[in-house]
């Protein structure tokens, strides 16, 4: 094997794909949202104090034995069915043996050659074209703990003076979903990879089996990629880019690795078979650890667990619980809502689909729901650096604010203040309106006085209006609104001004 002596320049993606075709493989780990771990009764809550969700089993204490979480098996089967997989009539767990401090038993209980689900596919719509991605397998395994390296730069092990171990995550159930090789037109590859991961996320949410949060690691994608010269049938050496943790990053990782591979190959060098770490900041990858097909995990069937043999009746029963497939559901919603393709793509892309569904269910029109979630709320989420669903406002509350507008009780500007109050935890929209006294004033008595005052204070403007320059009324309306602290019914103010100056 030749070694890389220098780092060849990247070849721009568009140029690279003139000469090379990428071959992709995607491995996605989904952390199941079961209440307890894969092989013990420990809780699985995210973000708990280190080592507070552990027991003899998930700590690998001497003598401890695993027991399979039936709920995790159920989730695995439902995921398999949703991926159009066959479900094994009989399968076993296996031990994957290797030493690593964050793995309490120094083997991972996983599935090897007998996955619970296999031979499936998903169909993706990407820019109007349908691509079928073949799923080789979906298997059950347990997560590892986490190492925290202290004293070195950027939390990496290199240069650290000690490490801390948190086993809360050890034993959390994972489903690993592995595609067969994906060969699509080169220019589509980044978008297809992204669409695939996005599709899996939607599927997991629809199945209600996982939070599927890439930012929290409950959905993690590894991007395997190799290049082959156009027209060649020979597969190149692949790299495995680990833990790419956003949809956009999936796309970027594919583009970067295509550029990098092309550069290395153009320079006459060989691609090293290795894992790569993805860097969110600049979309690049860097070497992880070398990997070879000779990595020897000494797999053998886990003797501490009985085989899993789901009855066909149970599998069919679970098939009956599958939700409408996400793509079909989106098509149905788009037509029900009267959204354009662009509207729909924006909504899905913003991660707002479920929020809009819930807001519509709470009484808002689809257009209004979309306006809030993709406008004002998206802006605020962006500013706060959080997801839309973490903003602290529920779809019901958004629908409540919209109802205030529709009833003419607040205007757009007041509505934003109501929302602010809701976000500040001041209660329901109705409660905020009452507490902050935000309701629009349309009572002629109060408005009339303010209008008279504005006319008196702006004689020049008033004269212009009397002379027929109706558009000048805006200045007087502004003055009234200012006086009324924005709470005047602007339409009624305008009518009053025009009446008084007719």
């Amino acid at each position, binding site marked *: 094997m030749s070694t890389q002596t220098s780092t060849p320049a990247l070849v721009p993606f568009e140029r690279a794909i003139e000469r090379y075709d990428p071959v992709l493989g995607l491995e996605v780990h989904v952390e199941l949202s079961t209440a307890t771990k894969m092989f013990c009764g420990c809780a699985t809550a995210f973000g708990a104090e280190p080592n507070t969700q552990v027991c*003899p089993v998930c*700590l*690998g*204490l*001497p*003598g*401890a*034995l*695993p*027991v*399979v979480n039936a709920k995790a098996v159920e989730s695995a089967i439902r995921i398999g069915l949703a991926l159009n997989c066959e479900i094994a009539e009989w399968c076993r767990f296996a*031990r994957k*043996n290797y*030493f690593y*401090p964050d793995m*309490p*038993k*120094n*083997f991972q209980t996983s599935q090897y050659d007998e996955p619970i689900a296999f031979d499936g596919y998903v169909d993706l719509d990407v820019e109007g074209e349908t691509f079928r991605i073949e799923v080789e397998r979906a298997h059950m395994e347990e997560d590892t703990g986490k190492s925290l390296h202290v004293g070195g730069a950027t939390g990496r092990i290199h240069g650290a*003076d000690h*490490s801390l*171990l948190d086993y809360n995550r050890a034993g959390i159930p994972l489903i690993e979903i592995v595609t067969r090789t994906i060969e699509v037109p080169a220019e589509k590859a980044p978008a297809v990879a992204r669409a695939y991961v996005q599709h899996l996320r939607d599927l997991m949410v629809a199945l209600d089996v996982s939070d599927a949060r890439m930012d929290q690691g409950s959905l993690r994608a590894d991007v395997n990629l190799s290049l082959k010269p156009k027209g060649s049938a020979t597969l190149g050496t692949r790299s495995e880019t680990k833990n790419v943790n956003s949809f956009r990053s999936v796309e970027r990782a594919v583009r970067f690795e295509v550029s990098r591979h092309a550069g290395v190959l153009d320079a006459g060098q060989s691609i090293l078979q290795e894992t790569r770490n993805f860097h969110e900041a600049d979309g690049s990858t860097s070497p992880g650890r070398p990997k070879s097909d*000779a990595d*020897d995990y*000494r*797999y*053998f069937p886990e*003797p*501490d*667990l*009985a085989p899993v043999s789901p009855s066909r009746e149970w599998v069919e029963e679970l098939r009956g619980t599958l939700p409408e497939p996400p793509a079909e559901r989106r098509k149905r919603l788009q037509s029900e809502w009267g959204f354009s393709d662009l509207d729909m793509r924006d909504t899905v892309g913003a991660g707002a689909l479920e929020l809009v569904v819930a807001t519509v269910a709470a009484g808002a029109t689809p257009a209004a729901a979309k306006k809030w979630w993709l406008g004002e709320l998206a802006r605020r989420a962006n500013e706060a650096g959080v997801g839309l669903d973490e903003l602290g406002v529920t779809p019901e509350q958004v629908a409540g604010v919209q109802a205030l507008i529709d009833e003419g009780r607040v205007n757009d500007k007041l509505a934003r203040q109501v929302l602010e109050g809701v976000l500040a935890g001041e209660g329901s929209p109705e409660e905020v309106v009452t507490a902050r006294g935000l309701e629009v004033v349309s009572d002629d008595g109060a408005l009339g006085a303010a209008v008279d005052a504005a006319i008196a204070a702006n004689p020049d403007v008033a004269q212009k209006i009397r002379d027929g320059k109706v558009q000048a009324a805006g200045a007087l309306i502004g003055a009234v609104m200012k006086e009324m602290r924005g709470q005047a019914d602007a339409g009624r103010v305008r009518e009053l001004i025009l009446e008084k100056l007719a």
Partner: protein
Amino acid sequence: MSDPVRLKAAEIAEALGDGSLTSVDVTQAHLDRIADVDDRLGAFLHVDPEGALATAADVDARRAAGETLPTLAGVPVAVKDLINTVGQPTTAGSRILEGWVPPYDATVVTRLRAAGLPILGKTNLDEFAMGSSNEHSAYKPARNPWDTERIPGGSSGGSAAAVAGYEAPLALGTDTGGSIRQPGAMTGIVGVKPTYGGVSRYGVIAMASSLDQVGPMARSVLDAALLHEVLAGHDPRDSTSLDAPVPSVVDAARRGDVTGLRVGVVKELGGEGFQPGVQQRFDETVELLAQAGAEVVEVSCPSFEHGIAAYYLVMPSEVSSNLARFDAMRYGLRVTPDGPPASAEQVMAASRDAGFGDEVKRRIILGTYALSSGYYDAYYGSAQKVRTLVARDFAAAFEQVDVLVSPTTPTTAWRLGEKSDDPLAMYLEDVATIPANLAGVPGLSLPVGLASDTGLPVGVQVLAPALADDRLYNVGAALERLVDAPVLADIDAGAAR
């Protein structure tokens, strides 16, 4: 009333029931006996007088208050130091777990506590149960009460020595390839390996998960059955635990009737390679069964001769994986190499090097090799096929007969050090016991007298189909009556006091 340590468990239970003894008296008598003789026997790695006496006092108080107690309540027991006990160290006979006190009880220990048995202490064993002589204990060898220059067998050698040496009426052992039955035979006591899955393995430090089984060791068949009944039953924490009714072992041990019973003598387990004195006692035992009305036939189990080879692939493979967790990261011995700051991997390697003995390392290396990519099919895969063949041999045999019998071991107890340099010779000691572990069927060894050539105890093994553990006790109880009860060991006889 005779010295309580000379009583069998059933006799102690009766004396406790009729008030002629208290559990505190009995427990104290055994603790005194341990204090007296254990420096010569090396049966215990840890003794817990406070804990044992507290349990005894509690049982006595409850009995005095008129409470109905389980049969063995108040009868002391010793526990192999491979089995987790809260409040007492559990070392697996290894330096790597020196001083480790488990935060949880093994299910079998929970059952002992619930049944009110005072736990005297933790018994010596070959490191991680790997050995047939107890010489592989990292702490000290256990010795045979019949001759303290001889091995008590292994790996449950400490439990066997404790029971045979009157330090405990009952003990727990574990049996992966014969580790209850072989030391039982070597020391002239009864030892039973229950059906795989009949007794929970939860909290028992794993050697080879698919073979390990906890079982009773005692000085009579009835005593073993009484303890078996306490230990057995489904445990939801052990996925390999059988959810089936516990066989009526105590009833069977009280019955002891072999009239019309079909007994198969395993052709492959005897003759060449078996010590003449052992073979002779075995043949006499078979004759006694026939005289008592059993139909004795010879049965062939041709795959048994491959049992050792298969066992020495399956067992080390599982060992190599099961013992990976001893890495100094969370518990146990931690050795940090001298020099510049060590990486986690270096600490793991140094700790495992210092903490594991040679036999453990030998088996880890064997197993690592057997599971390696490219060798898996030839080694682990083939061994699993042999396992299937052994199970088929049993199935075919049990269509013809109700139980199988053989000598438990090819020889009587050997001298300490005699086979230490010859692991293969040591492995061959398990030839007769291994098939039961490979197939998951139950086996019992009971003493049938002394070998004429060595004057040491000989054990006969009875094997039955899975979940027919009661047949072992029925045959065992019959033999116990038929055979001249062998004189039990008395290390005091030759000891200057």
